[in-house]
């Protein structure tokens, strides 16, 4: 009779090691394996989090190591929550978050639905569509600034072609009204393929026999779409929304390259604002409180959302 892998491993274990292990309980062995990971988690994630919470109650500044650090209670939190500029930043982030997710879900699902149909060149089109998400956000930000350039930018000329407007008569990046949309357009261009891929996975996971049964029951295509396709793709779609929501809540690089938060502060998202407070103004205590507020917001929203996602999955 051939030996099992476990038996072979047991035989290969040197007697001295085997003796030591024999004296350990299963729980102890489990701790030996899990311990390093837990230690790393504590060192890299939990300790900085606790330290940040601690700093958030102080007036600490990382660029003033010699200055006395004072505990100032909830003053940082109070300042942040009563600062109208921070609320404007939150509004800018909410606008960006809502519209990027809405557009990416609609366009991404539509593209996935079309790509899922069998036609010639299907693979080639899939590859072309996913190209933008393979690019670096810094590169995308940089070349879209050229595309948006009012005098020579291709974007303005395309809009001009369709609308008859003078190309240099509007500034996507420089206008207070258009700049928030400029960043939404670029993020949608870049990340719609990601949503499309997730939706495509959902669409391809629907067994054909369900549609065949629906056909036999003489269900219309419209009915099949709303009663089979949408409910079965919904968990995938919700997952895509979760990923994009978390990613866009901390959006930094693309927007910094595109607008730098301007004009004025209309595209200054929370992450850009936080970076300015922490590493340009060096208000470390204040920035820590800011980070904790953002963390609690994202964590809270994500937890509620995950619960909803699980309910949808259970249906």
């Amino acid at each position: 009779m051939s030996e099992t892998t476990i038996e072979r491993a047991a035989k290969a274990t040197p007697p001295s090691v085997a003796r030591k292990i024999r004296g350990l309980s299963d729980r102890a062995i489990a701790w030996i394996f899990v311990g390093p990971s837990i230690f790393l988690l504590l060192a890299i994630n939990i300790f900085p989090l606790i330290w940040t919470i601690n700093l958030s109650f102080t007036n600490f500044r990382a660029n003033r190591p010699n200055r006395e650090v004072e505990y100032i209670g909830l003053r940082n939190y109070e300042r942040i929550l009563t600062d109208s500029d921070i609320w404007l930043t939150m509004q800018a982030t909410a606008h960006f978050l809502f519209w990027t997710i809405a557009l990416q879900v609609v366009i991404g699902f539509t593209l996935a639905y079309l790509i899922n149909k069998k036609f010639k060149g299907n693979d080639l089109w899939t590859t072309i569509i996913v190209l933008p998400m393979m690019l670096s956000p810094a590169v995308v930000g940089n070349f879209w600034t050229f595309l948006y350039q009012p005098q020579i930018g291709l974007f303005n000329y395309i809009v001009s072609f369709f609308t008859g407007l003078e190309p240099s008569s509007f500034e996507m990046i420089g206008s207070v009204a258009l700049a928030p949309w400029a960043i939404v357009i670029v993020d949608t261009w870049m990340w719609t393929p990601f949503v499309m891929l997730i939706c495509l996975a959902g669409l391809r996971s629907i067994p054909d026999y369900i549609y065949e049964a629906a056909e036999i029951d003489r269900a219309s295509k419209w009915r099949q779409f709303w009663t089979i396709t949408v409910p079965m793709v919904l968990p995938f779609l919700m997952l895509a929304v979760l990923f994009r929501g978390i990613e866009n809540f901390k959006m930094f690089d693309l927007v910094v390259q595109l607008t730098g938060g301007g004009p004025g502060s209309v595209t200054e998202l929370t992450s850009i604002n936080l970076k300015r407070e922490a590493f340009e103004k060096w208000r470390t205590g204040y920035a820590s409180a800011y980070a904790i507020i953002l963390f609690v917001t994202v964590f809270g929203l994500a937890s509620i959302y995950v619960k909803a996602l699980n309910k949808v999955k259970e249906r």
Partner: protein
Amino acid sequence: MKTVKLMAATALTGVIGLTGAVGLPATAAQAEDLTLCWAAWDPANALVELSKQFEEESGHTMNFEFIPWPNFADRMLNELNSGGQLCDLLIGDSQWIGGGAENGHYVRLNDFFDAEGISMDDFAPATVYAYSTWPKGSENFYALPAMGDANGWFYRRDWFERDDIRAAYLAETGQELREPQSQRELLQIAQFFQEREIDGQTRYGAAIFTERGSEGITMGATGALYAWGFQYESEPGSYDMVGVVNGPNAVEALEFYKELYETATPPGYTDSYMGESLDAFKSGQVAMAMNWFAFFPGLYADPEIGGDTIDFFVNPPQEVAASTLGGQGISVVAYSDKQDAALEYIAWFAQPDIQAQWWELGGYSAHNSVLNDPGFVDSAPFAGDFLEAMGGVQDFWQEPAYAELLLAMQKRLHDYVVADQGTAQEALDLLVEDWTEIFEDEGLL
């Protein structure tokens, strides 16, 4: 045994110290690899060239870390704040001097200057005050003036001299087209050129600073604010800003800068600083542009738009003659373990003949022997303007909290000038609030 080892080490140290004391030249003792940090721009290339002579004379090797301007402050201040040893020498912005001194980033140079016979009286007083001293007005020196600079203007001389353009200007304004003698005249000329067809192309008035991220719009707008007599506080050191920072003159100046931006700059000019200003001018988009004097040698030497095509003028006055200060001093970084060699470089750099070469290569010396030389004014078409500008320069806050103060001003100015939010009065009122809060946090109010 431990005691014996300690005694031996002490003896050895003493012997080494004695060897140094009897005058072994540093070069023979130890040739160091020095790193000098600065911004990446034309004068930095000139300094590389100049420093070759130091390498030959001293035996030390010079390395250079040049950071693009938009990231320069961020990168270098992070380096200093973290006690980094990347830089032995740093040519840091004038506004960093307060933080550099108070946070212990820069080595205090008084004893070294005394020992080497370097006198600050040999340098232009405005540059010593701005680049070297902290607290202001004291005799504590933390840098040697390395690169004098101010914000000036350049223009298309060929267009200004064309008969058809001059006639059109006269017809439109009733005045002769000339180098602007006031801020208002500057605006008038810029508006005249705005969207004007010249040689079959649409041209624009002026390229000005509007950048949001680092210091751009502050450096540009202060050119107008200072010309209207802007002050940061009612009395130096009082931090009393109400009615001064947001006084009627400041409001008028800021409204002027907004009008200049809205009516006389190229489309899409919403986030522009040095590079964009140079690009706009070199591509023939604009008739005039503001920029630092540091770029003027390169512009004058440019085969396309230099020579007879270009000319220069100092920031025009309005209520007073004043320019925004640029430029930097050279400091020894306190975290460097090669401070002796770094000081050697400063001593070498301070020599009058080296300062003369520095000017010849394209650097702006602040040494009196260069500036007061009878031939200096005629040595370059912008030399006279440079001297005039340096006679009336004004700088931003140099407090340790300068970065916060600057970012607050960047936000308020950009919100008003570019994003068209609120009025000039509101923008400056908010700025006073921001600055007051910062000084309160600093314990100064």
